């Protein structure tokens, strides 16, 4: 059994008046892939975005209860959010490379955190692109604009960009939903590879994807966590009727 890395206890989240997460209790284990599933609007993305405090960008949100990363409160008043986000990287739903060269995209994070030496940056860029399984496709055009890449390549570039700051946890917010099947399978393989060194939390609408790659699955419905456990068990013998209805496609 792996150690818990992210732990939610009685976590509630509000967008203004709307109660988006209700009393969530969830322990995410280290070096695992944890999938968050559930129908649209169930709160799975909201939960993901509380982990690196991306919800801070939205006005009028409020959090109560406890959410901790390696035992420290994520929402502590003196929490350095930039440091938190350095440890907890994120890959978004739509590929969002910056309008600069491939090299500068990957080097953006390290540069932000103070790495200036050219040789060091070169190493980080190459290693991150290799880890994201895109090095061979882009090594001859590192100075070209990243917006010229295909959607699948852009998303792997974004993964490389996230890996370049050596995060501890990688959050993936439906990161394959905008991609074709081949790119999707590349990114799934990549996630399986990366869990050796990282803890990965993915939000997905695709249940086959959750089955294929995740170790643990959490099922959300209307802001509540209905069921959480080993993926294999949840998809073969769900304990809650609502989980069964959802994974067998009766709603959603």
């Amino acid at each position, binding site marked *: 059994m792996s150690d818990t890395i992210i732990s939610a206890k009685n976590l509630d989240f509000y967008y203004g008046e709307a109660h988006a997460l209700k009393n969530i209790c969830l322990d995410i284990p280290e070096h695992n892939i944890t999938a968050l599933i559930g129908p649209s609007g169930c709160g799975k993305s909201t939960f993901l975005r509380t982990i*690196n405090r*991306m919800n801070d*960008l939205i*006005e009028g949100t409020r959090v109560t209860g406890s959410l901790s990363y390696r035992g420290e409160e994520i929402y502590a008043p003196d929490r350095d959010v*930039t*440091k*938190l*986000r*350095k440890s907890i*990287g*994120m890959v*978004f739903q*739509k590929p*969002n*490379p*910056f*309008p*600069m060269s491939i090299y500068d995209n990957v080097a*953006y*994070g390290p540069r*932000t*955190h103070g790495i200036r030496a050219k040789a060091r940056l070169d190493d980080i860029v190459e290693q991150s692109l290799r880890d994201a399984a895109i090095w061979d496709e882009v090594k001859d055009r590192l100075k070209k604009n990243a917006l010229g890449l295909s959607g699948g390549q852009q998303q792997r570039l*974004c993964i490389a*960009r*996230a890996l370049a*700051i050596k995060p501890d946890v990688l959050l993936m917010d439906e990161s394959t939903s905008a991609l074709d099947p081949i790119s999707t399978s590349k990114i799934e393989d990549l996630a399986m590879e990366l869990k050796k060194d990282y803890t990965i939390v993915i939000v997905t609408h695709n249940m086959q994807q959750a089955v294929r790659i995740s170790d643990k699955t959490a099922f959300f419905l209307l802001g509540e966590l209905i069921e959480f456990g080993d993926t294999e068990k949840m998809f073969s013998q769900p304990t809650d009727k609502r989980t069964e209805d959802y994974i067998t496609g009766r709603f959603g």
Partner: protein
Amino acid sequence: MKRKMYEIVGRILLYGCTGLTVGLLLFIIGYIIIMGVGGISWSFLTTSESVIKGTIGILPAIKNTLFVIVVSLLISLPLGVGAAVYLTEYAKNKRFVAAVEFASETLAGIPSIIYALVGVIIFCTALKLQKTLLAGSLTLVIMILPTIIRSTQESLKTVPQSYREGALGLGSGKWHMIRTVVLPSYVDGIVTGCILAVGRVIGESAVLMYTAGMSMAMQDFSIDRLSGASGATLTVALYHYAKENADFSTAFSIATVLLILTVIINFSAGFLGKKLKRS
């Protein structure tokens, strides 16, 4: 059949509008150049007016124009871009932002003679700058600030939110994110704002007549003499020759120089923008 006629008539009307507009524009440009180009000579561009020799030269006016453009842009660009960045990226109070936007839109549209009055009261009188190019430039700063703020704000709004999220998600601080991701991807907006602002500065006469003076003599722009530098820009000089001296051939020559100057400035702003974007 009726439908077809309808289409044809519509198309003819649209062609007509375009043709008329472009035609009028070309006519004006052509007319000015034909009337003006004859009066332009090397000495016209490189000397100042001499009553004794009876020669006309516009070098002081050219220098004054460049001075006014450079000074007013140097001050208003950082101020305006800074204000726009604050309003779009930092300001939390939506009502405040809306009020400022409304105010700057209104200010961008009011007649420049009102700015002239403000300039006379604040810069020339209260701050004791008198009628100088410096006072004129400062008045123009106030005049073009709303234009720069609005155009900057509009282009900041077009920078995708996903760029901001991407940068913040990598642990970038807010200002770092703005400086490294938001501002570079909106260089075009700065350039457009600059061109609009320069256009207003070059075209301005009322403000400068009241705040910068109408002298056609050579001015000294060294820092310690700045308090005495007072003179006409090209546009004011144009007015001066056409209205006071009824010397229309000189006025047309100045107009031609103004046209060329505007083209040069707009092209170099565009060129600079492309350069900045690439680096």
